[in-house]
């Protein structure tokens, strides 16, 4: 960053070109869009997503991210947004639940399966289930019940067996 000053054009050499200011902040790519966070770079991704960008699909889980409501994908890998300072995300690609559907609004097959199986209780933990299930399917396109058992998510409404059905529905579709 210190070198940025050196690369600027020398002031006063032109009447029309205004020297660009140093751009402070962290560049992130979230759901295919570019953002720059210029606030506290230790702010966890969770609060940057929610308070700053108003991408509220990623939910508050708890101090430790327990329950898995805050799960996102970072460069394709499952991660807890509670534990990721924005500073660590420079240049990385973040996918949140808002980024799963196609740009034309067509739902991702997993989202559609959650809708078709009504794999929803109060809906608060659903985004986290979706992100963890997507990660599971990325790693195991035909997951076994034991694979599905490893999902870290918790649900008080009891939507687990419907989530399992939704995952299997997608796995079956991929197989066909």
């Amino acid at each position: 960053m210190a070198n940025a000053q050196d690369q600027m054009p020398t002031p006063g050499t032109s009447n029309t070109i205004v020297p660009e200011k140093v751009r402070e902040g962290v560049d992130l790519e979230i759901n295919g869009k570019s953002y720059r966070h210029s606030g506290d770079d230790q702010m966890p991704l969770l609060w940057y997503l929610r308070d700053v960008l108003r991408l509220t699909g990623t939910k508050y889980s708890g101090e430790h991210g327990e329950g898995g409501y805050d799960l996102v994908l970072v460069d394709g890998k499952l991660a807890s947004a509670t534990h990721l300072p924005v500073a660590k995300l420079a240049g990385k690609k973040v996918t949140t639940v808002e980024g799963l559907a196609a740009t034309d609004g067509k739902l991702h097959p997993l989202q559609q399966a959650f809708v078709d199986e009504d794999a929803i209780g109060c809906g608060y933990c659903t985004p986290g289930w979706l992100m963890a299930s997507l990660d599971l399917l990325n790693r195991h396109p035909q997951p076994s019940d034991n694979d599905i058992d490893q999902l870290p998510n918790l649900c008080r409404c009891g939507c687990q067996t419907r989530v399992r059905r939704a995952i299997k529905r997608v796995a079956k579709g991929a197989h066909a």
Partner: protein
Amino acid sequence: MSHTNDNAIALSRRGFLKVLAGAAGALVVGIPFAQAVDAPVPPALLGDTLYGLGAYVRIDADGHVVIGIRDPDTGTGTSTSLARIIADELDADWTRVSTVSLGLGVEDDNGKPRWVYGHQTSGLGNSIPAAWADLRGAGALARWLLLQAAARRLGVPADRLHCQEGNVVAPDGRRLGYGELAEAAAKIAPPDAPVPPKTPDRYTLIGQPAGDVDARAIVTGQATHALDTYMADALIAVLSHCPWPDGSVESLDTSEALAVKGVVKVVQVKPEAGVPLGQTVRSPAVAVLAENTWAALQGRAKLKLQWKAGAQNESSAWFEQQAADLVNDKNAQPAARVRNDGDVDAAAKKAAHRLEATYVQPWLAHATAEPMNCVAKVDKDGAVLVVPTQAPQQAWKVVQRLTGLSPAQIEIRVPRVGGGYGRRLDHDYVAEAVMLAKAVEKPVKLMWTRDEDLTQDYYRSATVHKFSAALDGKRQIVSWNQRMASASALAQRGLPDNQLWTSEVDAHQLPAGLVPHLRNDWYSLPSAMLRGPSRGMPHVSNAFAVESFVDEIAHSLKEDPLVTRLRLIGEARMIPLGDGRTLDTGRLINVLKLVADRIEWKNWLRTVNGLGIACWHIDGAYVAHAIETSLQGDRLNIERVVCAVDVGRAVNPMGLEGQVAGATLDALSAALNLSISYKDSQVQQHSWKDYPLASMALLPDTTEVIIVPGDRDPTGASFLGMPSAAPALANAVFRVSAVRVRRLPLLKEMLRML
């Protein structure tokens, strides 16, 4: 109502339904605010805000139908099921229906608040039964008006027209869409007599499966719970609560907290003296208000705060000992003799065979997914709150008391709620948000952390149940004595002592009506731990104890527990239970037999796995579970879960299946692993690491739900799947392990005894 004008015809229909012309040719049927009609608000404005209108249903000129949902949706499916009750009556095209959550409507009637939509509470599984008649009435009236409008347009008598998927259809095939008729329909005077609702043979949506209306918004992350609401200029508030409700601040240094970038203010909040539990702040707290949540959380961590302990120093171990002592003390006087049929003691003396057992169940927390939160904007002109509540009227009362604002000045918005289970019938967090908004003179968005959510709850009391049963020479139970000790969930809420038992025991619970000599005594324990309503209370703890004990009786008789149950229930008949309630034993037998057949109960002795069965009834709804378990070493597997429910008519079978399967898993999750313990009146569980809701791996892979077809008016079902699930599991565990679990949580007890 006397006021009328060309556009707003306000005729009384059963005293509450109104017809209005909305904006741009819309037809509105519902319950307008007094000021919307009497003021009068220009009718052109009526279509602009459904919150301000109070409509149940609006049909727009383009044929789109908007249905207002009066009860909060905590995940129990009210948005879908309530909408489909109106939409069916209206013969709407479901693909062109959208829903909107109705905030709280209050009329200022000579200074007295009146609830515009009726009782807007989501709890006790009551949403569908309470709304059934109202919603069908609104839909029927809208349909009638559209038919009249079409009759005039087509020159065909209304009784020769019929409605179909958003159209009025004439005998000659001509069709008029509802949108084309809406404006004319809004100008037709409603009939003096109520329009009779459809006969069930003409239902098109009721009884058909439908997914959650909010599903798409939820899976795309667009659904906004209250915690996802951002009000302009609102400060984010997080709190540090005193571990003791009767404690206080010993010392507080805010300098480092205020030095955190983004932190704006630190404010103390305190409980008010003399205000019932749940209507004011629960424990003293220090709030850190900041520009964003991260700053607020950092600020909270930097508070130098010492709490002064309260006088309370109770422990959960002490409480359970007290409860056990009470039920075992033959001289102890019950706080309530809940039921006393025949002469229990005389019958027991004559009996051939006697049996006793004691069951202990732990304290439990609500553990909602969305933590307590509230957005509050309060100034002298009014208040706007966004509240995840099950009971908006109760939240409104808290705001009214704390602000002194008039009813019409308070707006309560209720988005989809991230779980209720009774926790959100209390509004301590609303009181906190209002107090903070007043203190900082800015809107405030309050959020509790997970730790606070678990340690600052209104818990379900631990219970101890002691049973004595006596059987005659024909192996029939002739005498049944239940002694239960707990701390009432209704204490400290301004209710008289003689009502406190009602949260702990149901006077009509099994085996009431089936055993000639039956006594049910409740022993009240004082406790400093704050308690509140919980999902399925009082049925969940009682069903576990009763249905486990029935299994013990079967075992002592060396009998198939299904046979024992069927002998206890006897022939199909109607048994009056008192209070006008009836036990339909035929429906109870039916759900038992359905789950037994499905799980192949005839193998109950031959299988190496363990089969368990249990049943229950709650106010006209019947449920049974059969569960198969296996043991691999000391690892318990729940192989199969089958549940049958009879709720009368199932409005949305898909939603009902979800509710029943969900409640089943919720009950199993709690029974397997959950307990709250406390020392010095401080809860020892701080996160879901030590209050572990069951993971996927512990729960069954499938939950099979059998819905009994029925044509009675629907009963509530949101917790119906809970009561018989845990005893069926414990009974199955006994079959596979010979361990009789008389103390929950089950896994810990099973491992101790294996």
